[in-house]
């Protein structure tokens, strides 16, 4: 017991410091384990509590000191008693354990001794067993040797049986083939069957029986091939059937080249039938009068629909099956199919083109666009299959159709414009009820301009359908670039504006020459204004609009710049206005000329009135003034003298005394005034009569007045006048002076010309006695 005690104290609580060293050695191996399994112990170690009696850092001194200092006596005693009890209990436990251990050790020793004996016996048994096993294996080898021969025979028999089964099926082949190849049977199965059998048959064909079978099956298959061929040749097959048929024939090892030809010819028949069906809808090409053909029964979309679903669809199908059928077969190279397809598509294009040509009217562009779109889509599908089947031709067909349509729109626009012009002419020519004004020129101009512009916009909108985003062919490079620039911008817009200018110009250039119907002057004026408006705003507007709707590519071909078009329009406007001035001037001049030429200036009586023709001239010019004023701005007038209308109308003095140096050709004019007038002329500007005018009212009127008065001057010079004739001219001139100066840009022009008229009249007068100025004024005011 004494020996146990220190151990027990070491394990639990050492009451005395003497056992501390030995207890530490015993505990050491357990420390890490305990630490491992009990984290709390580790914690306790982290914060060592020397007062914990169960803890590893227990310090009896500290514990005692702590207890002694902290606890009251009663507690100390109770503690001491408790500790004593615990120690005793532990001691008894320890003794029990030790005893048990000893017992177990004893029993273990016994067991081991027993085992030693047992093993010795087992060793002998094991030797026995080995001997037995050897005996078994030798006998087993004997048995298997005995059985081997029989086994081999069995296997041989099984092989023979399989072979026999195969032979059986081979023998059955002709029957099956016959069954399956019979009309209405399943040729495909027959083929499969034959394909399986064929190799074997071929291999063993040196054996007569096999050869018989082979021959028979081959005969059957030949019969099948013959039937298939016959079918291929004479029947019209659906593309699918055709494919099957040819496939089978291929499997029958018919020559692929020949089959390829057969296939193509069959396909050709079929496609040709489709084309003929399509063609039936078209009027015959050789019909002499294309214009009288009735409009086609179905619209273009329908036609293209049918064409693409029937022809293009079938062609696609056939091409695809051709590809899969003859892939890798020599002699059925791509060339044949391509050529075949190209020829047929070419015909199809031709038909479509003819159909497109029938679209004579403007019709529904959206329908055409949709038709072309569908055509193009289907064609693209075909082209993916057959890249050489005329992609160019198809694209160019679409482009041509679009271009054609644009051209037609241009013509329609031109017709429309001519129609508008016709309306305007009619409105101008329509007799107006007195007192009620017809539509004024500004209204007519506005109507004309707006309707033409509206039509142009509408046409652009229609044409834009060709480049819409959802249309497949709009992504072709042609429609992105060339179409926008060359067809629409140049071919439609620019061409129309050019044509418009040209047509307008034609009114000025053409008809007056060779007696064609002459355009009414008001129309000339209207067109001049129209061209001028085009130059100012409309052209740039139209071009901007076009460029917005049809954006030109960045590096496209050169386009007609706006300014050059504007220049053309301005040129046309100038020409028209000049022509207007000439026409109106000529009308007035004609009146004056007739009045001068038909009058007997020698025998006339003393003037009492202004001649009616002068009043008429003033009226006409006033009317022209109103007309021009409706469309053109006033324009600038040169500053007027304060007393323009009151200016004396000068006629040379009547002195008839011929001066010494007076040349013989002016017997009636005295030298001094003549010289004076010549000197005056030196300083006055030369007047160009038929000179271009500016775009304003004053300039136009000045031009007309100049032409009229110059004519009067020239005509008077051709006449011989008497005294009263001169006086009449004087009166007339004054009257014109009185009423015309206000129309002219520079009244001095009017004065100058009228002065010359008077001077010339005086020169041509036999008895130049001018009228008193006051009398002239009186007559003019009265008239």
């Amino acid at each position, binding site marked *: 017991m004494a020996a146990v005690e220190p151990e027990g104290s070491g394990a639990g609580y050492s009451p005395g410091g003497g056992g501390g060293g030995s207890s530490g050695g015993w505990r050491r191996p357990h420390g890490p384990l305990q630490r491992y399994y009990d984290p709390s112990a580790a914690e306790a170690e982290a914060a060592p509590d020397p007062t914990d009696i169960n803890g590893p850092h227990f310090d009896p001194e500290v514990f005692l000191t702590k207890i002694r200092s902290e606890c009251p006596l009663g507690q100390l005693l109770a503690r001491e008693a408790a500790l004593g009890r615990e120690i005793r209990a532990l001691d008894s436990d320890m003794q029990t354990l030790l005893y048990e251990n000893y017992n177990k050790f004893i029993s273990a020793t016994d067991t081991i001794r027993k085992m030693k004996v047992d093993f010795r016996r087992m060793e002998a048994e094991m030797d026995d067993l080995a001997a037995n096993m050897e005996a078994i294996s030798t006998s087993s080898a004997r048995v298997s040797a005995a059985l081997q021969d029989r086994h081999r025979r069995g296997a041989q028999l099984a092989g023979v049986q399989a072979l026999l089964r195969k032979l059986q099926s081979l023998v059955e082949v002709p029957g099956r083939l016959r069954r399956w190849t019979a009309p209405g049977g399943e040729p495909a199965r027959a083929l499969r069957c034959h394909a399986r059998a064929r190799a074997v048959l071929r291999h063993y064909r040196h054996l007569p029986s096999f050869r018989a079978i082979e021959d028979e099956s081959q005969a059957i298959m030949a019969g099948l091939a013959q039937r298939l061929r016959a079918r291929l040749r004479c029947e019209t097959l659906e593309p699918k059937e055709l494919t099957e048929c040819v496939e089978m024939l291929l499997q029958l090892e018919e020559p692929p080249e020949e089959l390829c030809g057969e296939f193509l010819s069959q396909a050709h028949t079929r496609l040709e039938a489709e084309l003929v069906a399509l063609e039936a809808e078209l009027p015959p090409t050789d019909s002499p009068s294309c214009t009288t053909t009735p409009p086609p029964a179905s619209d273009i979309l329908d036609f293209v629909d049918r064409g693409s679903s029937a022809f293009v669809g079938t062609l696609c199908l056939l091409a695809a099956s051709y590809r899969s059928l003859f892939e890798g077969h020599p002699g059925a190279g791509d060339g044949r199919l391509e050529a075949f397809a190209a020829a047929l598509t070419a015909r199809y294009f031709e038909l479509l083109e003819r159909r497109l040509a029938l679209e004579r009217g403007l019709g529904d562009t959206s329908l055409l666009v949709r038709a072309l779109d569908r055509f193009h889509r289907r064609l693209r599908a075909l082209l993916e299959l057959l890249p050489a089947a005329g992609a160019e031709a198809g694209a160019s067909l679409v482009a041509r159709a679009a271009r054609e349509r644009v051209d037609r729109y241009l013509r329609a626009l031109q017709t429309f414009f001519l129609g508008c012009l016709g309306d305007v002419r009619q409105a101008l020519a329509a007799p107006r009820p007195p007192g009620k004004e017809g539509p004024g020129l500004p209204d007519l101009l506005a109507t004309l301009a707006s309707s033409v512009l509206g039509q142009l916009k509408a046409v652009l909108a229609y044409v834009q359908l060709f480049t819409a985003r959802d249309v497949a062919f709009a992504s072709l490079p042609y429609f992105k670039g060339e179409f926008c620039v060359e067809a629409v911008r140049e071919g439609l817009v620019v061409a129309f504006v050019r044509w418009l200018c040209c047509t307008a110009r034609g009114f000025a250039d053409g008809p007056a020459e060779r007696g064609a119907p002459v355009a009414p002057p008001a129309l000339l004026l209207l067109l001049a204004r129209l061209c001028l408006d085009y130059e100012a705003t409309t052209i740039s507007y139209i071009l901007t609009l076009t460029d917005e709707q049809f954006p030109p590519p960045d590096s496209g071909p050169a386009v007609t710049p706006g300014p050059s078009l504007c220049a053309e329009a301005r040129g046309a406007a100038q020409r028209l206005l000049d022509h207007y001035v000439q026409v109106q001037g000529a009308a007035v001049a004609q009146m004056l000329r007739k009045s001068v030429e038909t009058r007997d200036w*020698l025998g006339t009586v003393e003037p009492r009135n202004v001649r009616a023709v002068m009043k008429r001239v003033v009226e006409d010019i006033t009317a022209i003034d109103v007309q021009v004023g409706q469309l053109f701005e006033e324009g600038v007038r040169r500053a007027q003298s304060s007393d323009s209308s009151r200016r004396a109308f000068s006629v040379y003095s009547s002195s008839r005394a011929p001066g010494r140096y007076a*040349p013989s050709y002016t017997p009636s004019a005295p030298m001094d005034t003549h010289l004076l007038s010549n000197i005056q002329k*030196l300083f006055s500007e030369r007047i160009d*009569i*038929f000179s271009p005018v500016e775009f304003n009212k004053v300039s136009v009127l000045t031009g007309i007045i100049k032409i009229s008065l*110059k004519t009067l001057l*020239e005509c008077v*010079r051709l006449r011989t006048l*008497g005294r009263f004739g001169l006086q009449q001219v004087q009166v007339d001139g004054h009257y014109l002076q009185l009423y015309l100066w206000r129309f002219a840009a520079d009244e001095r022009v009017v004065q100058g010309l009228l002065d010359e008229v008077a001077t010339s009249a005086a020169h041509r007068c036999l008895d130049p006695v001018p009228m008193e100025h006051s009398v002239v004024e009186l007559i003019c005011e009265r008239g």
Partner: protein
Amino acid sequence: SDSKVMTCAAVWRMPKELESGSHESPDDSSSNTQTLELLCHLDNTAHGNMACVMWEPMGDGKKIISLADNNILLWDLQESSAKAVLSSSAALEGKGQLKFTSGRWSPHHNCTQIATANDTTVRGWDTRSMRQIYCIENAHGHLVRDLDFNPNKQYYLASCGDDCKVKFWDTRNATEPVKTLEEHSHWVWNVRYNHSHDQLILTGSSDSRVILSNMVSISSEPFGHMVDDDELSDQEDQHQEEKVKEPLQDSVIATYEEHEDSVYAVEWSSADPWLFASLSYDGRLVINRVPRALKYHILL
């Protein structure tokens, strides 16, 4: 009768001194005016106002054609021009009062053709049958003022009129003019071919201008003056090459603005092909020369 004006025609003889072209001092002429000698009148009382008188271009001066109102009168001068006998005549019939304004006797075809102008129409006549042989309707937009035949090129006729234009016609094709000039700004009263170099055209107009044009393309020498290569030295050869390079183009050579009033007559000198005169209403007679550069260009 005082109240009636009648245009008449007469045959005159120029004074002998002037005719011989004597080189008298020029200041004598004003003091020493010669008078014309009246030979005979062309009696037109039955036919109306004389508009135009023309001598037979190549003949012996015995034949005269005059245009009076709507009549063409062919006169024979007899007894050394002391008497004019009407040998044949033709009248232009038609709607309204037709009046000839001008006429011209063609120097080609053995002098058997004349051309007349009335209103806007130009007509050709055969003097043997006195029948119309061609007619250019609406030759000008307005009145036709004057005509002239190309002296070196058959069938070529120039006309001018109130539409300010000068037109050149091939009388075998009366529908379209061969060429049109629009340089004047008022009526053109006169057009004249140069007698020897028919590319030179002179026109006078009531815009007070005289214009000299070079109509090479329709002249009898459309490729310029032909010079044999042999005659040229090397230097000239080079010069010739340069000249060939610049193409011969119709152009206005010069516009003469010396006149202050309407020009009613222009005429080439019959002696010097480079000299011409023009006359305007205010009595100014201007004599001009073809520019020297052009002259050499034509000659060399």
